[in-house]
Every structure is written in structure tokens, then in C-alpha cells.
């Protein structure tokens, strides 16, 4: 009986020890918070721990003479709804099928980002850029053996512009298209209403679809959307929902065939489990590792079998301010806010040094030939001085700055909107919240699910929010993000920032085909944005992947890894 009385005591002791050991572990990650509470932030420095390079480089030690054959297993953390990019630009579908199963007229070279031929062998531009004549490759076959011709290209454009088709998002990329013709089997002519520099780069994402397959049936939910018939170096073999998507080599590919026999996309919903599968050697390529996984969980045994591949993608996190709110109306106040955000600290503690502080939406290497915009340094003292100067003082002594606007006392109190589920964003916001409170600004953090988040941003029903800007081409028209006409009616200028010079640049730059002239204009735009700070640009986040040492011919690219160039030495197949 005495033992029985002891049971609860033992149990309690056990539970307490669990809790305290949990706390020990947490203290490591939560160090910065307790430190910032005390006064100045603790020193946190990112020594050169990682070797992260811009995309487009070969992974060292994976060269050699390619040998055909073998199977590569790739981690897929989600499943695409289907593969029809026209209907939904899904990231996973793009990675699996774009250029590998379904091809386009032209594409951006994954290494150099230059426009190179794909289904169009060559093209001519005439009529001051308003007519583009594509000469299509001959001898190209669809995966079902039928010949490819200009009728397929015309069919693709027919569907793109067909109001029956739910393709408004991609239709917008081609809003300048007037007409198209297919004068003969090998020629396709695109006539434009006005010249837009992004038309050719946008073609990189317009998958050419087989007319004979889609000719019958409802395009919006056609079975071929999930069982694509393309012209690419890989054929979709089968898709077992929730389990795997398997591509096999197209032996009758018009170009150099792929080296690999099969590529298996293995669906693993949980990233920690995928990581375990790497440890078991069941996955050859896992991308988008979490910062904690890179920083804490890579052991030498794993690294003896896998390369840690890191590069800078076109992926930038930023905070957007609703400039219609009284406290975000003035540019200098927004600059002060940026000075209060310790991006180095966030980079070091939350991001585990796997990102870099930047001053523009483009990564520093872009646009080509232009110097990067330096980020505004973290400087709380100077920020406070600016806020005082702008009339934001704590007049009622409640610890929060305020200002009399239109006869009303407005406290500097705003809500930061974040999508739920991201712990790194929560920690990031907590760090900023602390620093702002010390400067007399009260920031409330509110989390919502993505649907509500995006709706509130679009309706401008928010104070400040966090966004991630991901793109896959160096030639992006910034019109929709910064132009004042896009500040209402469903546009993505969420902050409703309006600036006359920026409008002028955006109106003009989209018609400029000469890249260096356009880049100079966009550089000026970036300078304006840096000056006005409608956004606080935070960090350019690295892409971290585990790539099995079995895989050769691997190089990084903002268009992900190129399966067609990967090969496996015969000994390791």
C-alpha cells in the first residue's frame, strides 16, 4: 500500500522533470527574448557558418560524364490540384511538370535566365515589337504519338482567351495580346496591342496543350489536367493520390533525352517525417528544409550521404504598411519604423543565419547591372528622434506615442496581421513588438488563416501585415504592386501607396524592351521605394535542400532543380 501512495508522487516528479527539461531546451531558442527584455539585445552574430550562393551554380563534386538510367526520389510536401498551369499556378505542379512534361514556346534558361528556344526553334520580332513570328520545331511528338503543330499553339491561346475558361490569372499576363494566327503548320504569329517587356518571359509559363486531347470535354475540369499529355522529356506514368507521382523518361523526346529512367515524387506531408526518410535513405532530394533542421539536425553521418545545397532564390519577406492609416501616412514615420525593426537580430535568432538583410524586393544580384539598394540600418535612437520630429509624442503619459490629427488624439497603436501557423513569423513579430514598445509604439499581433488574411489585405482592412514575395523570373512587371491604379478594386498594391514619379516609371518601363534601360528605371523605382518605405523589406531567405550524393549533374536554379540534367552513376543505380 505504501508503494501505491508513492505512485502519484513519482508521477508528479516525472512530469516536473519533463517540463523542466523541455524548458531547458527551449531556453536555447528563446534566448533573445529574455535578453531583450533586460535592455539592449544580446550580441548575436552570424559568423560565416553557411556558404550560400546565388542560383545557377553547379553543386561541387557532382560533375563527370553522364550515364543514363536510375531512379530519383523527390520529396513532395503537398500534392498539386492538377497540372494545368493556366487554371491554377500551383508551385508543386510547376516543379513537377513545367518544361519537364509540358513544354512552352520559349523558356528562361534555368542557369542564365536568358530566353531560349523550346518548342519554338526561333522567332522574329517585327512591327516595332508588336508582331512576334514563331517558327516551331519540326518532328516534335506528343506523348501519345500524335504530331505537334501550330494548331496546338493556336488552341492554347484560344483557351487562354476563352471566357468559358477559368484562367483570369494567367490571362492577365497576356493582356496586351490582340490576335494570333497559325498561317502554316510550323508558324505561329502573335500580334500585340502594345509592347510589353514581360510578354516573352511570360511565355515561359504558358504550357502548350494538345488540341486533340482537349478538343472534347470541359476544359476547366478535363481529365487531362490531372493526366497531362505533353511534349517534354518526361512522361507522367501514374499518379497515386496521396502517395506518389511518377514520371518516366520520354524515349522519343525531340531534344537530348533525360538521363534518368524515372523520377518519383513521394508525398510526405510532414517535413520532420521527410527528414527522417532522408536519414533512412528513402529520399534523394528534399527541398525547403526548415531553418531548425539545417541548423540543429544535420549530423555528420547524414552529411556523408547528402550534400546540403543552399542558394538565394527570388524570395523576399517584407512587411507592408497600410498607408491609409493615420500613423503610416508619412514616409518619414515609415522609415522610423523600419529603423526600429532589428532585422539582423531576426536573421540571427529566428532565421538561424539562413537569410540576408536586403533593402529591395529583388535579390541584390538583380536587376543585372544595377547596384543593390542598401538596407536602412537598425537605429532606435534616430527613429525616436524622427518620431518626435513628426509630432508623434506621448502627450497623455500612457507610454504610447500619440498625435493630434484632425482634432483627434490618435495613439500610435496598430495591429500586425500574420498568417496563422508560422512559428518563425510569431517569433519575428515578438521581437519587433518588444523594440517598438520601448520606442513608445504599441503593436498588437493578430493571426488569421490565409483566406481571411488575403481578403483583408485586398480590402485594405489591415494596419500592417507580413508577406512573402516569391517570383521565378528576373523580368517581372512591378506595375501591379506599386502603381496607384492598383490600390483599389482588388489590386495587389495592398498598402495603397501612391507616388507620382513611381507611377510614371511604371507606366513607361513596362513598354521598354531594352533590358539595361529598363533596369535603370526599375533601379530608380527601388530607390523611391527605399526612400518612401511603403514596405519594410526584411530578408532574402535562402533555399536549403538535401541532395543525395548519388545525384550528379545537379545545379541550382530559381526554377528549381532540372530533373532532365540529373544523372546517377551506374554503380549507384
Amino acid at each position: 500500500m505504501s508503494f501505491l501512495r508513492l505512485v502519484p508522487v513519482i508521477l508528479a516528479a516525472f512530469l516536473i522533470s519533463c517540463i523542466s527539461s523541455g524548458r531547458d531546451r527551449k531556453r536555447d531558442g528563446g534566448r533573445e527574448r529574455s535578453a531583450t527584455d533586460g535592455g539592449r539585445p544580446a550580441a548575436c552574430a552570424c559568423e560565416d557558418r553557411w556558404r550560400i550562393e546565388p542560383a545557377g551554380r553547379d553543386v561541387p563534386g557532382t560533375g563527370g560524364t553522364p550515364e543514363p538510367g536510375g531512379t530519383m526520389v523527390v520529396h513532395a510536401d503537398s500534392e498539386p490540384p492538377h497540372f494545368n498551369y493556366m487554371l491554377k499556378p500551383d508551385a508543386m505542379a510547376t516543379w513537377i511538370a513545367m518544361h519537364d512534361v509540358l513544354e512552352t514556346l520559349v523558356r528562361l534558361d534555368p542557369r542564365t535566365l536568358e530566353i531560349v528556344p523550346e518548342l519554338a526553334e526561333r522567332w522574329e520580332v517585327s512591327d516595332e515589337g508588336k508582331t512576334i513570328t514563331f517558327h516551331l520545331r519540326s518532328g516534335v511528338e506528343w506523348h501519345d504519338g500524335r504530331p505537334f503543330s501550330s494548331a496546338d499553339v493556336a488552341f492554347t491561346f484560344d483557351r487562354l482567351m476563352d471566357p468559358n475558361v477559368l484562367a483570369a490569372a494567367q490571362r492577365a499576363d497576356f493582356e496586351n495580346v490582340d490576335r494570333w494566327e497559325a498561317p502554316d503548320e510550323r508558324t505561329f504569329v502573335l500580334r500585340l496591342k502594345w509592347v510589353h517587356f514581360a510578354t516573352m518571359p511570360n511565355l515561359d509559363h504558358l504550357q502548350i496543350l494538345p488540341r486533340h486531347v482537349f478538343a472534347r470535354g470541359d476544359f476547366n475540369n478535363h481529365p487531362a489536367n490531372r493526366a497531362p499529355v505533353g511534349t517534354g522529356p518526361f512522361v507522367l506514368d501514374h499518379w497515386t493520390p496521396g502517395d506518389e507521382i511518377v514520371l518516366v523518361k520520354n524515349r522519343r523526346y525531340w531534344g537530348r533525352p533525360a538521363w534518368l529512367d524515372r523520377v518519383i515524387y513521394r508525398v510526405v506531408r510532414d517535413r520532420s517525417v521527410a527528414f527522417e526518410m532522408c536519414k533512412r535513405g528513402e529520399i534523394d532530394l528534399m527541398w525547403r528544409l526548415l531553418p531548425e533542421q539545417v541548423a540543429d539536425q544535420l549530423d555528420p553521418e547524414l552529411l556523408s550521404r547528402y550534400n546540403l545545397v543552399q542558394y538565394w532564390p527570388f524570395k523576399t519577406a517584407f512587411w507592408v504598411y497600410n498607408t491609409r492609416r493615420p500613423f503610416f501616412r508619412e514616409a518619414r514615420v515609415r522609415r522610423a519604423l523600419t529603423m526600429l525593426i532589428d532585422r539582423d537580430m531576426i536573421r540571427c535568432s529566428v532565421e538561424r543565419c539562413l537569410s540576408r538583410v536586403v533593402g529591395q524586393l529583388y535579390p541584390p544580384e538583380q536587376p543585372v547591372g544595377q547596384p543593390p539598394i542598401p538596407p536602412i540600418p537598425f537605429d532606435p535612437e534616430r527613429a525616436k528622434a524622427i518620431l518626435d520630429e513628426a509630432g508623434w509624442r506621448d502627450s497623455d503619459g500612457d507610454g504610447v506615442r500619440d498625435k493630434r490629427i484632425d482634432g483627434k488624439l490618435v495613439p500610435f497603436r496598430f495591429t500586425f496581421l500574420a498568417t496563422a501557423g508560422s512559428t518563425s513569423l510569431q517569433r519575428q513579430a515578438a521581437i519587433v513588438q518588444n523594440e517598438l514598445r520601448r520606442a513608445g509604439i504599441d503593436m498588437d499581433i493578430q493571426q488569421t488563416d490565409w483566406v481571411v488574411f488575403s481578403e483583408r489585405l485586398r480590402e485594405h482592412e489591415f494596419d500592417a501585415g507580413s508577406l512573402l514575395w516569391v517570383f521565378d523570373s528576373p523580368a517581372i512587371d512591378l506595375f501591379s504592386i506599386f502603381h496607384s491604379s492598383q490600390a483599389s478594386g482588388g489590386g495587389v498594391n495592398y498598402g495603397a501607396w501612391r507616388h507620382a514619379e513611381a507611377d510614371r516609371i511604371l507606366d513607361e518601363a513596362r513598354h521598354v524592351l531594352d533590358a539595361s534601360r529598363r533596369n535603370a528605371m526599375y533601379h530608380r523605382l527601388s530607390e523611391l521605394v527605399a526612400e518612401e518605405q511603403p514596405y519594410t523589406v526584411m530578408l532574402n531567405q535562402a533555399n536549403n535542400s538535401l541532395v543525395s550524393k548519388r545525384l550528379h549533374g545537379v545545379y541550382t536554379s530559381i526554377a528549381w532543380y532540372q530533373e532532365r540534367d540529373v544523372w546517377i552513376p551506374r554503380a549507384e543505380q
Partner: protein
Amino acid sequence: MIRYIGRRLVTMIPTFFGITIVTFVLMHLPPGDPVAAQVGEGGMRASAAANAELIEEYRRAHFLDLPLFVNTRPDDMPKQVQRLVERLPDPERGSWAARQLVLRGGIILPVLLPKLARLPEEQRAGALAVLSRIAERIGATEDLEQAADPTAFWTGYWELHRIDFRPANADRLVRRYARRGSPAVLAELRTLDSFIVPSVVDALGRDPAGGELDRLSTLISLVTGREVVYRVGEPESRRRETIADWKEWWFKHESDYATFRGPARFVAMATETRYFKWASRIGSLSFGLSSRDQRPIADKLREKAPVTLLVASLSVFFAYLFAIPLGVFSAVRRGRLADRAIAVVLFVAASMPGFWVGMNLIRTIGRAGWLPIRGLTSAGYEEMSLWGKAIDLTSHLAMPVFCLTYVSIAALSRYQRVAMLEVVRQDYIRTARAKGVAPRGVIWKHAMRNALLPVVTLLGLQLPFLLGGSVIIEQLFSINGMGLETFEAILYRDYNWTMAVVTLSAVLTMAGVLVADILYALVDPRIGFGGRRSRGR
């Protein structure tokens, strides 16, 4: 007993609709709708006009533009034309409106032409551009080009042809063409363009035979620009598919072509609503399309429900298999060391979260390579022998089923223990003991049947869980089941999926309660089916 079941089934129907109506309201209460999920994912490249267009297209495709239960102002073709014409001069949305009008085709002529001359200048310019595109389809281009004043041409055209634009005329022509397919009639039909759509849909509703369907589907494809055609000689299944496809299309697009006047207007007030659009499909067990991937809900259910059913029924089975003996054992040993030890162990187990246990299993057993850690089958499952399949499936199921089972064992065994304690105090048990039945016989033969009642009730309530699935376990072990899909459907406001799951759960819960009641009667002879005997009491 059969009468009893029949009566219960009848009362289930209003209950069922009550549940769906309440769910329908609740589901639409939280902010945000599937459109937001769709637009946000389009990236930040699209212009405001394109986003607005996407939103409108998408709302229409999923009936989100309709009110929930009562439509006081049902939208029909003439109203839409009116709105679209007003929008024509808009520099950003004008081209979209024009495209929509051209898509509607000839059916807009009876609405547009009579008032063409009275339209404001800039609207008329846009309308004329639209009409010139429609002229190509009705074969009036040459005349139009020769005419000096297009407005006058169209007014004159209407004077001349209004007699043809009558539903009765369209019906007659369509019937004649469907029967014989003469080129002369076809030429006449082409001049009416999409005005014939309601007549063709009518004809499709009469289950046309192969040859007729060939001509009808070709006709409607020509005027709607949506190519879904049946050819003579294709299999019967294809014939049915084609008819179903066009019916589905009409279901979505009726208000683009129909005019609601008189009694039709009152009907439309009820039918042109989101709830009606949803409920009218329930009869045919079609739950519509998933807003996230445009796949039919029924297909997705067929794919995911069996997986969840397998995993959940195994876990329920094992939970009962272990919980009942454990409960009985604790009851028999009440207050003794074994009882307390079991209680402690079970409570500790029940308080460990499933994801934590699952992750630890993966990190230990999984890392050691003893059991697979994802999915239900290995690659090459299809080629395995029956025995190999069984082993493969078992090894995959072991960890997820364990994670689902251990939590419910605790609660269930407590129920069983209490029920058993209750029963062993009864007089008849004492009697049995007194007359010298062995202790084992007393428990298993005399007490057990009564002590099972509460857990049998619980079993009835487990039925919906069999289809509900578990979000965390499915995520962890990459199981393609219902839980994760439902979770994401709620996040992304996939109303059709949510409604389908709720409907199925409602049916299963009601069925479960019924089954439990019947089981009661079987386990306990004192409980009847509400027949004459019990009513008399």
C-alpha cells in the same frame, strides 16, 4: 421491429435537412470565402482588373454570387445583359464585359436590339463592337459591312427577324433538326445562334438516342463554344456522360440564358439560391466540385473514404479488443494493486498527445528501420503476393493504428469498468454467486451482457469517426484520408467538401444511433421496440 425502424427512418429525413441547413448557415458565417483562397494564390502579378475578373468568374462557377436561401431578385439573362452593357465603356473591365456578351451570343439579340438606338453613345459603340462579332456567327457580316449606319442596320434586322426569335420557333426547329438533321434547318438554326440553347437543353432532357444526341450536342457546342460532343457509334456510357455533362453545364449556366418571368420568377426565387443548388444534387449523391482542385467530390470521397474507414475501424476494433477485458479485469480487481496500476498507466497514456507519440515512434522504431514510416503500402504493392500484401499493409498500419488506439483505450476501459461494477452489485449476480456459479462464469456469462450496454452505445457514436479521420495522424504518416482533406477544406473554405463530410457524418450518426438502439434490444430483452406492449405501460 420493421415498423419501428421504418418510423425512425421517416423522422430522419427532416432531421437530416435540418442539420444541413444549420451547417450551411454556420459554414458561411466565418469571414472569407473560397474566392479569397483562389485569388491570393494567383500571386502578385495580376492586375486589379484581372483579379476582379477572376473573383467574378470564380464566384459564378461556385454559385457564390447567389444568396443562401431566398433570392428576392433572381438574376437572369436580360438583367445580366443590361449590367454588362452598362460596363462596356469602362476602360479596365470593358473588354471583359464585351467578351462575356459575345460568349452569350445570339440570345442577347432580343434584349439588346430593341433598345440599341436608345443606348447612350459610348455604350452603343461597345454594343456595336459586340454585335459585329455576333454577326459573324449568325451570318450577317456581309450585310452589316455594306450598311452605312450599323445602328440602323441592326434596328432593321430586328424588325425583319423578330418573328424568328420566339422560343416556340426555336423548339420546332431544334426538334426537326434532331430528328432528321437536314442542312436547311441547320442553316436556319445558325441564324438564331445561342437563342436555341434553352430548346436544345429541353431536347437533351428527353434522353435523346445516339443519332439525335450527335446532332444536338454538335449544335449546342457550336453556339456555346464549349466542345462536348457525342458521335454516333460511341459507347452507351459516353452517351450518358455527354448528356450528364450538358445538364451539369445548364445547372450552372441557366441564369446566363434563361429569362425568369411570371411563375418562373417565383420558382427562381427558391431555385436560384446556394442551398437549393446544393440540395438538388444530393438526391443523385453528387456533391459538386471541390473548389480547390475542381475534381468531383464523389471521386475524392471514393479515393479517401476507404483509407480512413480501414484505419479507423481497425483502431476502433483494437480499442474495444483491449478496453473491454481491461475494464472487466479492473472491475473484478477493484481497489487492488492491478486496478490502480492499470489506471495510472492508462491515464499517462491518454494524456500523451498523438503527434508526440507518433513522432517518437518514427524517430525510434522508424529510424531503426523496423517499420515503414509513411503511407499505407510500399512501392510495388500491386505485384506482391497476397501474403506479401498482408504483411506490407500490416507493417504500414501498425504505427498509425497504434497512435489512434492507445488514447481511446483509457476512456473506453473506464466506461467498461464502471458498467461492470454497477452490474456486479445487482441482486441476480448475488443469486448466481449464491447458487455456486464459478466466479469466472458469473462475470462472463451473467454480468457481461448487461455491462456491455454503455460501450455499445458508444460504439454507435463511433460511426461518424470512422469517416472523420484524424488530421494529425494522417499528416504524420502521410495517409491519404479524410481528416487532412477536411481540415484543409475548412482552411480554404471548400464548401462542397465540408458539406459532403457533414452530410455523411449526419447520416452515419443517425444510423449509428439507430443501430445502437437495435443492439440494445438484442442485448437486453427488457427493452422493446415501442410496440403495443410498451405503449400500454
